């Protein structure tokens, strides 16, 4: 199944792209699974996600935790600093 991943702030800068589409890898079913898979995929991923605890996620437009099941769209980003 296709999965659209978007990146924001320093996660975007380190990944070098704003968005990508991938086929969901076998065995990757939660946010934490995906982050671990991205960290293992290449050097960029390894550097970006060396501290998974610093990364937040939204799945299909809703804030998500590490154990949240993946949907069609996932956004990965640092803790927010608005206001």
């Amino acid at each position: 199944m296709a999965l659209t991943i978007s990146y924001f702030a320093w996660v975007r800068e380190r990944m070098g792209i704003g968005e990508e589409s991938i086929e969901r890898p076998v065995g990757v079913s939660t946010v934490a699974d995906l982050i671990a898979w991205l960290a293992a995929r290449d050097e960029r991923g390894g550097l970006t996600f060396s501290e998974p605890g610093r990364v937040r996620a939204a799945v299909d437009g809703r804030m998500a935790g590490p154990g949240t099941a993946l949907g069609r769209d996932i956004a990965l980003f640092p803790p927010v600093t608005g206001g």
Partner: protein
Amino acid sequence: MIRVAVQDAAIDIAAELDIHDAGGHGASASFIGRVRGEGDLVELFLEHHPLLTEAGLADVAHVAADRWSLSALTVVHRVGAMAPGDTIVFVLASSAHRAEALAACEYLIDRLKTDVMLWKRERFVDGRSAWVEPREGDRKRAARWD
């Protein structure tokens, strides 16, 4: 009336106030957040999520409208590149009662800092640029409302 906006354009506070003023609400509490010019800052860039940022603002606004007795509520957040002194965020809560307006305004600005998908990057006069780290104080202030 709940009005939420995420915009690149400068925030027109007088125009936003006029809308509430026309409503004749007994009390309006507002908060203006501006770009501070300390530490040789030359630009603040605010990155947002094209869909989720406005949805997040709307969520926070609706929670406030459920929690307090409000007659009108406006939240406008600017995004993109800003200079020191520019207004980043404007919150305006109106009610028949001042305690409700004041509490809702404070709630909104506290929650915006931790719950809405926005990321600040600062650029300084010497060319340095850095993403703003979340502050523990903001997290604690936001958690007071839980």
